[in-house]
């Protein structure tokens, strides 16, 4: 394997440099050496023909559940990062709701070790905010950061105790990291299993009101303002929450947010359309048309949505093969996100291709302070190459992820990943 790689003839889009055009990209020793119109191929360089394809900074999914340690029957670091690479991602941030919870340095280290051993994608562990995700006392955040965690979150669960959230926002500032909140008021959620609205009423299923998310976001934004902390709303799903985040940003509050592809494409009616299929059950739930439209409208706005993240949540088929009321929440996303976004966001003109790449690389990198999301000279050569509009049919059975739980199985979409490169090294997924 040569230390030089020339990716030539592709449309290079790098939002961090406002770059968009047909260029050659030369990689040397794992870093971006040059981007130019026609780069002379060095004698000992390998080549990759990217004609007709798009070349972008490696895509990063900052909301993924790798399930390791403890739930390896659902997914492992190995299969999860394979799925990431197959989906066009060079990096993933993984959540702490494992077993044991990632609230200590040893679990963080284990995850990093596994990731490095298999090498399919960079893994950026997100450590727990509270010990055991119990929401009572702070976890050893410093220790986890020291060995490589990049942010903290109790995701899977909200931090219900306002005082604990306030402390976390203060404490995190010692380490320059962001506090990610799964925004949900568990009391308002109650026994809810889908969005509370016209469709939960028709189906007779207990509902999760939008206010469950909004009430928490409102509270946290106030705390973020008071503490001058850094805050991120995970899987934001309502119009009102988006509006509050937008206004907070305008006031100079350091709040960011991510949106998941399924909230941009499906609505609560899907549960009825699919006859109670559990592939439509996740948290936050699929919301109303009004919410979906507000999210779509906010996508193009940099002052609103910062990034797209899949909330990849693999479950074993047996676990999802039960009645709606009992099924665990969550769907996979690593191997569906890029095609869905290209087909349903770029194709109909909701966002431009450069903006989508920003939402999937530059944006996530900025939110968590990760290296990546850029192809500036000298930066690590994490690169994603994809076809912008060739038709593909999503097939869950062919996913590298152990989880096949997706409502998008069989969807014919335009656009798909082609290759990923980690520091110049081509990643092949068996």
């Amino acid at each position, binding site marked *: 394997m040569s230390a030089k790689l020339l990716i030539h003839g592709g449309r290079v889009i790098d939002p961090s440099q406002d770059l968009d055009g047909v260029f050659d990209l030369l990689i040397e020793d794992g870093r971006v050496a040059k981007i130019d119109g026609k780069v002379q191929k060095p004698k000992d360089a390998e080549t990759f023909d990217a004609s007709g394809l798009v070349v972008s900074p490696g895509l990063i999914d900052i909301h993924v559940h790798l399930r390791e340690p403890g739930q390896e029957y659902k997914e492992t670091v190995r299969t999860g990062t394979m799925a990431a690479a197959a989906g066009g991602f060079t990096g993933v941030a993984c959540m702490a709701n494992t077993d044991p919870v990632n609230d200590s340095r040893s679990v963080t280290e284990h995850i990093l070790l596994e990731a490095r051993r298999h090498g399919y994608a960079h893994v950026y562990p997100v450590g727990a905010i509270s010990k055991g995700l119990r929401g009572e006392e702070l976890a050893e955040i410093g220790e986890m950061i020291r060995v490589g965690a990049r942010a903290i979150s109790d995701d899977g669960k909200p931090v219900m105790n306002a005082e604990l959230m306030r402390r976390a926002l203060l404490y995190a500032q010692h380490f320059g990291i962001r506090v990610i909140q799964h925004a949900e008021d568990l009391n308002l959620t*109650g*026994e809810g299993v889908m969005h*509370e*609205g*016209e*469709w*939960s*009423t*028709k*189906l*007779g*299923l*207990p*509902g999760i*009101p939008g206010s469950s998310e909004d009430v928490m976001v409102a509270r946290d934004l106030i705390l973020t303002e008071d503490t001058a902390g850094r805050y991120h709303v995970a899987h934001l799903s309502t119009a009102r929450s988006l509006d509050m985040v937008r206004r907070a940003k305008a006031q100079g509050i350091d709040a960011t947010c991510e949106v998941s592809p399924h909230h941009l494409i499906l609505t609560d009616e899907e549960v009825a359309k699919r*006859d*109670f299929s559990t592939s439509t059950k996740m948290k936050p739930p699929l919301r109303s048309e009004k919410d979906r439209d507000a999210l779509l409208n906010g996508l193009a706005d940099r002052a609103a949505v910062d990034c797209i993240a899949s909330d990849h949540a693999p479950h074993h088929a*047996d676990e999802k*093969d*039960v*009645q*709606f*009321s*009992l*099924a665990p929440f969550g769907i996979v996303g690593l191997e569906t996100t890029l095609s869905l976004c290209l087909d349903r966001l770029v194709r109909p003109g909701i966002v431009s291709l450069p903006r989508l790449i920003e939402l999937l690389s530059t944006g996530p990198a900025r939110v968590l302070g990760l290296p990546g999301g850029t192809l500036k000279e000298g930066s690590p050569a994490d690169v994603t190459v994809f076809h912008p509009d060739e038709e593909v049919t999503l097939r869950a059975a062919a996913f590298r992820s152990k989880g096949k739980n997706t409502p998008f199985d069989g969807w014919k979409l335009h656009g798909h990943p082609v290759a990923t490169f980690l520091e110049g090294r081509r990643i092949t997924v068996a």
Partner: protein
Amino acid sequence: MMPETSTRWRRKDLLGIAELSPAEIELILDTAESFAEIGERPIKKVPTLRGKTVLNLFFEASTRTRSSFEIAEKRMSADNINFSTSGSALEKGETLIDTALNLQAMAPDLVVIRHGHPGVPHMLAQRIEAGVINAGDGAHEHPTQALLDAFTIRRHKKTLGGLKIAIIGDIEHSRVVRSNVHLLTRMGARVTLGGPRTLMPAGLEKMGVEAAYTLEDAIRGADVIMMLRIQLERQGRMSFPSVKEYFQLFGLTTERLKAAKEDVIIMHPGPMNRGVEIASEVADGPYSVILEQVTHGVSVRMAALYLLSGVQEETA
């Protein structure tokens, strides 16, 4: 005499009212009319389902609906097997799929199922060849109840279209409400749902009904009043302080009944909480058709069993 209709029943299952056309609803009601007479014969049996096996799967406790189905099945000469559990071992979903596979192996002709979770009859129907009748799935639907309610109303009012119908009670948790709303609005009735704000679910206007928050507003000028059982044993919802307060605000008494039409009929899916949602004098009074509903339940269920036991494709 019954009008000649070319509608035939072609569905494998009866899972809900939401998907039925007015013609299909009328077919069931008209068929039930023919079956009503059997209950007046000396020998209350017809041989139509002789040799057929009906499985009654009741995952939720139920005396009324279950025995109604059992009587209906026996009157059709079917063999029935009852499988009931009030939760315990078969509460967890893991066993539901296994249950379905085991059922398939027993090759029943029809399955009647009641379960506490919405969508369970649908899951079952997808996996077994037998026709599935939904006897109530959580708060979602209870189609045979709505059908027997409509049958009862039709007997008294000759038609469903144009009637003003009030349904009062715990609207949020009631499958009877949902099935009735689908059926009655589809057949041209005007439905008003009444109850405390804390028990009214979101998005009701989208179902084509009006909401009222006092009893008087709900029953004003009503042709039919349906009272629902108030279920305060459902904890965790913090919706209503006590049955005493409920009766004061929403209990149907003879005095309050005056707001309805003079020839109003009073209905209740049962079991009743006397003195909570309905006063005894009303339940036992001249306007009440509550006991008739039970009789009609058997006819309607016989009709459902009959229609679902046909083959879907013409083989002759």
